[in-house]
């Protein structure tokens, strides 16, 4: 088909804005909402594409708080909300373990120049961190993952934000690099977080699919 002769195909709404709306809106209204915006976008784009583009982004940004609020009122979202509270508590526990137990012990051991004990402390922290991250992965997968979507789609939508929070907190908690952490160790703990979360979520997702 000749693209120039078909304004419907030529003017496509901003894809990223579409994705934001799609991610925030409930399943039953998502299609209609995107369709309405697309319809109005086409009409505006005939006059000015730039204005239509700005209008679409304005709609996306203006709609976001309402869509989030509407989602928070559903039972599924309330479950996710409670899940997030548990995740925050689990993260705080991991941080407390890192700061109070591991680092203080490591500081003492480093002062006494005892590398084997330092390695053991690091290993214990490593295990605690991995279990915590796996627990978060299980929780998010149980509460938010939809079996109608693919595993990676679910991961991008629901697990990625939790993962980012965990990684940032893990990095912040490893501020005192000279005593407890090296760059390689930081990379290893980030890898441990992501692997254990993804693996745990994948197991839960597969089990739910089989049921």
């Amino acid at each position, binding site marked *: 088909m000749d693209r120039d002769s078909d304004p419907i195909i030529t003017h496509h709404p901003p894809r990223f804005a579409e994705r934001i709306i799609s991610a925030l809106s409930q399943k039953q209204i998502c299609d209609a909402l995107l*369709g309405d915006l697309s319809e109005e976008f*086409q009409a505006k784009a005939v006059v000015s594409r730039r204005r239509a583009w700005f209008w679409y982004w304005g709609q996306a940004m203006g709609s976001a708080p309402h869509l989030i609020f509407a989602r928070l009122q559903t039972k599924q979202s309330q479950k996710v909300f409670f899940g997030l509270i548990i995740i925050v508590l689990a993260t705080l526990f991991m941080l407390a373990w890192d700061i109070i137990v591991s680092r203080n012990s490591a500081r003492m051991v480093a002062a006494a120049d005892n590398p084997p004990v330092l390695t053991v402390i690091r290993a214990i922290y490593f295990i605690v961190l991995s279990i915590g991250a796996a627990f978060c992965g299980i929780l998010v997968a149980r509460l938010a993952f939809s079996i109608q979507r693919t595993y990676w789609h679910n991961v991008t939508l629901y697990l990625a934000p939790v993962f980012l929070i965990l990684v940032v907190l893990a990095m912040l908690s490893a501020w005192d690099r000279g005593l407890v952490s090296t760059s390689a160790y930081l990379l290893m703990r980030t890898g441990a977080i992501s692997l254990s979360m993804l693996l745990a979520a994948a197991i839960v997702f597969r089990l739910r699919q089989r049921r």
Partner: protein
Amino acid sequence: MGFMAKPKSLGEFEILVLAALLRLEKDAYGARVRTEIETRAKRSVSAGALYATLGRLEDKGLVQSFTGGATAERGGRTKRYYVLTPLGQEKFDTAIFGLNAMLKGVTAWTEIPTR
């Protein structure tokens, strides 16, 4: 004064949405309802706010929705039409009755604003 439960009356925006549904009759889907409110009430409305309100009204049993056809300009996406239920009509009538009763008193000593 004792404890009184908050009455479940319609909000201002809900009244505007229900009025738009009544005006548009069988052609009441999101984009048309939004344009109707913007044109007549001169009020800027985001699509998300409209759908959130329509969802709330549907949960209350005041409107019901059904899926309509898809067009190319909508990117092949379906429309969602909304109509008032008898309960919605009743609630709307009650709200408008109260509003009219109040406005009668007000218009006796001031002018109705025009834009």
